[in-house]
């Protein structure tokens, strides 16, 4: 199926609730823990407001599965999975 990550990929972190943002299913809310990755993309992602502690709602995947749309700080943002992978988050219950 399109857009569903394969199970073989590992999520980073120890906590069961810690995942990278590309793994989160639509209609789920998460809290940002940390942004990793290349310096330039990390800085841009931080600038767009994905700072630690920010609540992010995963809205939907594009029709072909990538990129993914998020809602945070009252606006909508889309990231390719490759960028979403660098954002470590915790699922909000």
């Amino acid at each position: 199926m399109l857009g569903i990550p394969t199970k073989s990929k590992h999520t980073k972190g120890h906590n069961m609730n810690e995942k990278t943002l590309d793994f989160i299913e639509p209609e789920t809310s998460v809290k940002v823990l940390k942004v990793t990755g290349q310096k330039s993309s990390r800085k841009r992602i931080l600038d767009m407001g994905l700072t630690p502690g920010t609540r992010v709602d995963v809205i939907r995947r594009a029709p072909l599965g990538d990129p993914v749309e998020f809602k945070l700080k009252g606006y909508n943002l889309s990231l390719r999975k490759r960028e979403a992978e660098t954002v470590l988050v915790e699922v909000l219950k």
Partner: protein
Amino acid sequence: MTEKITVALAGNPNVGKTSIFNAITGSKQHVGNWPGVTVERKIGKRVYNDVMMEIVDLPGTYSLTAYSLDEIIARDFIIEEKPDVVVQVIDATNLERNLYLTTQLMELGVRLVIALNMTDLALAKGDNIDEKKMQEFLEVPVVSTIGSKGNGIEGLLEAAIDELHKTRVTENVFTYDDQIEENVEKLRAVLESDPYFAHYPSRWFSLKLLEGDENIIKKAKESNSYSEIQKIMNQTDAEILEAKVADQRYKTIQTMLRQVCNINTSHLSGSDMVDRVVTNKVLGIPIFLSLMWAAFEVTFTFGTPFMNIIDIFFGWLAETATNVISVPWLASLVGEGMIAGVGSVIIFLPNILLLFFMISLMEDSGYMSRAAFIMDKVMSKFGLHGKSFIPLVMGFGCNVPAIMAARTIEDSRDRLITILVAPFISCGARLPVYILLAGAFFGRDAGVVIFGLYALGIMVAVLSAKLMRSTILKGEDTPFIMELPSYKLPTLKGSLIHMWERGKIYLKKAGTIILIGVVGVWLLASIPAPGSNGTFASEEVYGTTKSVIGMIGQVLEPLVAPLGFDWKIAVALVFGVVAKEIVVGSMGVLYGVGEDEESLSNILAAGAMTPLAALGLMVFTLLYVPCFACIGVIKRETGSWKWTLFQLIYGTSLAWGFAFVIYQGGTRMGLLA
């Protein structure tokens, strides 16, 4: 006039900055490029209360880092050119992220005025913003505006002039934790003692050093105090600090927002509901394709009568000129050379204006980023951005507006690749060539052959994109981080201004190149070849063996002989650079049948060419040097002759290679014999 000031317009993308700019300057705008790069720069003028204001529209940015060209341009302009006032346009429906840029502008120590734009939409959404409190908190004038209706513009100009006459500028409303502040202070002390840094806002410069900003570090390295600076910098970890700085800026903003406004987050907004439809898993792509088809129909089908008007007018003008001028060569120069040349520039105007009107509607309404969102997966496979899709599709109508449409792609590398591969998409002008040749040689299978040519064009375009991405235009991938702005009603005025700007740029910048090209080819076809006894521009010389172009054809013959082409075809291809459909007409003249296509196809099929050579010729026509109009816009849009030349050589080599394989390979294997 007493005073002359410079006002820079800053802001995030999609906040209505352009509508504010238009509302301030009206039609008094000049569109050019920032020095040395192809990022667009708009400058406008406005006289208000006896103050002559020059308004500079900075590129829309979310931040002021050194990672994107737009951000570097914006901040360098502010630091180096020191505008008298900076006006930041803020989207009132999206305060938190917009104010992030405000924090950075304030740290730059500029005289700042905030235009709180789209307050009508914020109100409709149910947000309640207390401008007075906001102004007190930020210590910066805040003026509410509605750019699309032109509301609040005078108040904004007034505030900008008032701000200029104030003595104090706040630069540290936003404070960070003690550890950061301590290091900032240490650095500031060093910077302020070194005259080299007197030019720069010291607090901002210190922060950027601590964040590890490459451009700023480079500047610091040239100073004498760099070793001292380095010592302080080494005490902190840039990576941790940069996250902390972003985090603390947003925290301060949140604290402020809690006091100055009441944001309604409870309901599903109109934009979200529309997005549910247009980015729907099943229907999203079909809806997008339908809208593309609508845009295509308007641009090319609706554009046809306007092209005919231009065609008829210039035909009449050329004829009149030829009749009036009694000297034959001069009549031909004016009629067939210059007037036809001007006509061939203007003929593209209807398509360009219509396409940009629609692109403007898509961009201003917010649909353009949805289109990119939907198509990105496909385009990223070939190393392109979702936004590259629209220029490539429009190429099926005409490559000229398609190349210009690449403007909508923000990243310069993605844009360059799109421009370089767009000419491979088979445009409408190549179709007459296919119809004639495929009809003459492939009869019932003509449709399949033509379809194959279109498919080949697409394949060459996307595979070339992939190839360029992994070779000459390699490098760190730009991250895909795209806002999906809320939908807005585009304004007619805004779209018309945008459309007219594009038309003007095309006429001014590309027009000259096209005109020179067309007149140049006329000259080559008219000047008698050395040794032949024809007269300049006479009918017996024009385009025949007796002309320079005929001579060139014969010189080129050995080069194209391996493709099964003779000198006549070489000449027709040279003419084809004027416009590809001319290949057919020139062949008719060269084979001595005039404009009659029926007899031309009979002569060709009777043995003037083999079917394999004909197939090769069609592929060659598809891929070789695009027409002068394309060359003109490629030069204008890439801003570089080097890349323009690269496109020409790359395309022609591919054309030659394909035609060679088809003719030689086919002949050896006995295909189509």
